[in-house]
């Protein structure tokens, strides 16, 4: 499979590595090359790998990346976060990571309150990194 790899620096000053596979349209953003001790599905198309002890994000993977960032008829697509699928003991760690750098440079959180719904649904928009403007 054909891979594009590139290194970049985020607004927060952290270095990241992008690995994009064109054939499978899979993007992996690596924040730190370390062995993950935990991983969860953030959305049906995004997987977060992290260090359980330090709650440090290690990588984000985007399935069908080019379609995730494709604007829809009325603007950007929002994807529900699968928070109900995260084990209770992971919730606090995951929310803290999502609200901080570097994840907040890739995902913008939001809420959707369905009419007559009892529960607000957490959602996210994928921010397309400028450095990948031509990669996908």
């Amino acid at each position, binding site marked *: *499979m054909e891979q594009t790899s590139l290194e970049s620096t985020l607004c927060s000053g952290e270095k990241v590595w992008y690995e994009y596979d064109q054939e*499978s*349209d899979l993007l*992996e953003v690596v924040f730190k090359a370390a062995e*993950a001790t935990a991983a969860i599905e953030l959305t049906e198309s995004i997987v977060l*790998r992290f260090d359980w002890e330090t709650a440090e994000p290690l990588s984000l993977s985007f*399935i*069908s990346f080019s379609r995730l960032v494709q604007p829809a008829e009325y603007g950007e697509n929002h994807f529900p976060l699968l928070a*109900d699928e995260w*084990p209770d003991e992971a919730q606090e760690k995951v929310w803290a990571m999502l609200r901080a750098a570097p994840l907040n440079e890739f995902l913008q959180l939001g809420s959707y309150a369905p009419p007559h719904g009892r529960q607000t649904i957490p959602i996210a928009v994928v921010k397309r990194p400028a450095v990948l403007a031509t990669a996908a």
Partner: protein
Amino acid sequence: MRRWFVRDRAGREIYLTEEQWEHIVARHRELRDHLDDVLATVRHGRRRQQSHDPQAYVYYRPCDTLHLLFNGILVVVVFRFEWQEDGTLLPNNFIVTAWGIIMRRKGER
């Protein structure tokens, strides 16, 4: 290079190349020594279509033999077609990647 072929619960043939498997375990080391579990996830697991990409599916299944906190496996499979030399079009379904994950198990909430 070897290829492993499996059929999912609906009988669709899906393969994993050795090259891709090496790529997967180099990055997702929790799956080292779990090739059989990854293939079993495709063979017996549930699948979910990506809402924004009808050709991409995630197969998932609990797995209790992974180390640390990991208790499940996710496998991404893309479903494509490939033209043959004789002009026929055949399915080309292959595993793109896989992860060990931590998932809420049934009855935990």
